[in-house]
Structures are given as C-alpha cells and as structure tokens.
C-alpha cells in the first residue's frame, strides 16, 4: 500500500464510530447502513488529498458523513457493497445496551434530516459555532433550532 492509502486506512479506523453513528441514524436498516458507510468512505478517500487541516479531522469526517447521508440518493445504489464486519446488529439485537441505543435511534429518526444532523452534533458536544459551520446556518439559528428540537424530543418522551 502507498503511504496515502495507509494513512486513509488509519483515519477510517480511528473514526469508524463517527462514520457508523451518522450512517446508522440516517439508515432504515442494516443494508442501508452498509451502503451509506461505503459511500462515506468513497467520499472521504476522494477528499483526503484536499483536507487542509483547517478544521479538526473529526469535524471534517462529520461534515463528509452528514453531507453524504443527507444528499444520498438511495435508489441509485444498486451496486454491491462490501459488508461491514460487526458481531452486533443494532437493528435486531435484544440485549439491554442495544435496547438503549434503539431508543436513541427511534427518537433521532423521528426528526427531520437536518434536525437529525444538528442533534447528533450537539450530542457529540460540539459548540454552536462548529454546528453552524457544518450545517451552514447562523449560530443564532442553531440555538433556536436546538431549542425546538429539544421541545420535540420532550414531547416524544411524553407520548
């Protein structure tokens, strides 16, 4: 492997949780997570050479992952993807931890796509400035939006 390829493999391994979390929250089932995951990797690989380090690597990975998942045209993806290597199935497993994760998935998945992105970034403790830069709205708008999202989440819990 060339140096660039080795670095890419290291970067993917270091950020696999971030990529998976975004794909999981935007997918309907395990197959879709697979498709989205690979699409994110393709976009990360395409952009690695141009990553200038102006933002943190984690923020950049989030940006590419969210852009890919929000803009993905699912019907286009009929090509075979290489399956993810996982011993767990977050859509079907029944243990208590997975149940907790499924509760989170259910809540986030009920939100609209952009709100899903905003709340995910917020849950990862990103600042309002960072969220605003990734989503492309003002900081004030982020705070208003988050307020509404939190209200929505509270209502969901009350139902």
């Amino acid at each position, binding site marked *: 492997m060339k140096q660039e390829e080795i670095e890419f493999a290291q970067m993917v391994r270091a950020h*696999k*949780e971030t990529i998976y979390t975004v794909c999981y929250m935007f997918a309907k089932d395990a197959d879709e997570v697979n498709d989205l995951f690979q699409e994110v990797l393709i976009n990360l690989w395409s952009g690695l050479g141009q990553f200038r380090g102006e933002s943190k690597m984690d923020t950049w990975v989030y940006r590419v992952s969210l852009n890919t998942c929000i803009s993905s045209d699912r019907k286009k993806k009929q090509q075979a993807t*290489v399956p993810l290597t*996982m011993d767990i199935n*977050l859509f079907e497993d029944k243990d208590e931890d997975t149940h907790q994760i499924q509760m989170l998935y259910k809540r986030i998945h009920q939100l609209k796509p952009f709100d899903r992105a905003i709340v995910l970034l917020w849950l990862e403790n990103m600042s309002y400035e960072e969220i605003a830069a990734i989503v492309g709205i003002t900081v004030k708008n982020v705070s208003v939006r988050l307020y509404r999202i939190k209200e929505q989440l509270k209502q969901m819990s009350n139902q």
Partner: protein
Amino acid sequence: MEENLNTIELNEMKQQISLLRRKLEKETIVNEKLIRASMQDKLKALKRRSYIECVVGIAAAVLWKFGISSDFNPLFIDFTAFFLFFAVAYEVYSNRMLSAQNYIEGNLVEEARKLNHYKKLARQWYWFSIPIVCIWFCWYLYESYTVHAEQGRFLFIWGLIGGTIGGVIGWNIYRKGRKAINEVIEQIEELTGEKE
C-alpha cells in the same frame, strides 16, 4: 432556558450516544477489503453513471445517423440524432455540480441545495423529453409503416406495451424520489427562512 430543557431525556440521550460509541469501539466494523474497495471505487462510483449515459447517447446518435436508419426520411434521422446529442449535453450540464469536492468542503445546506437543483433539472428534463419522445415514437411508427409496412403492426403493439410498462415504472420512481426531496427542501426553507 436551556438548563430547564436539559431534562432527564436529554441526559439519557447523551448517555445512549456514549453507549453506542463504546459498543462500536469494540467492533472491527471496517476490514481491509472494504477500505480497498472504497479506494478503488472512487472514480467508478462518482462518474460511472454519467460516463455510461454519455457514451451510450453519443454511440446511439452516431449509429442512428450513419448506420441502421438509412431507409428513413433524412429529416427524421437528423431530428433523432440531434435529440440524442442534446440529451447527452443536458446530462453533462446537470451533472457538473455533483462533484466529490462539494461533499468535502460544502456545508449541509449548500449540498442539499445543489442536489435539489440537480433534481430540478432532471425533473425539467422529464417534462421536456416525454412529449418529444411521444411525438418521436408516432413519427417512428409512421416512418416504419411507410418504409417497412409488414413490420408496422408488430412495432406498434410491442412499442405500446413497452412504453406503458416503462412509463408506469418511471413515474413511480420519480414520485417516490420527489417525496424525499420535498422533505429536504422544506427543511432548508425552515432553517434558512428562504424560499427555494
């Protein structure tokens, strides 16, 4: 205000996302094969569709003009070849905004806007091309009848069946795709306060 809203549910969500991360940390998730496939797939995945459409469109136009259609009216031949070239040019034009660069540097709103613009162009193409294809098909039948009268009936029946099935499938795909796009457009309007 935020303090008041940071109730049990929100703290619970933070705990749940940490749980998800911890669970994922223990997993391999990506193997060597997946990483390699993604690196090799770069050009294929991003450009394959446009590339194939362009090659097929140009090849069909050239073949039509200089090959299979020599018995037909020259005006019909030129019109068909021109339409195929135009379709290729439109595909190239509408695809120019969908580059990997956008995903890397652009923000979510920008990206969704570009994608929606692309879809809008695709929609416009549907409305423009469907009547032309219908007219072309009638013209084709007429040409077929005048040049090869015995095959005219066969062409008409199978053309009608194929056209109807294709039309129903195409409309269904278009309708479902449009629903998803509308959701994203609505959200952009909500977030930015601007109408698309």
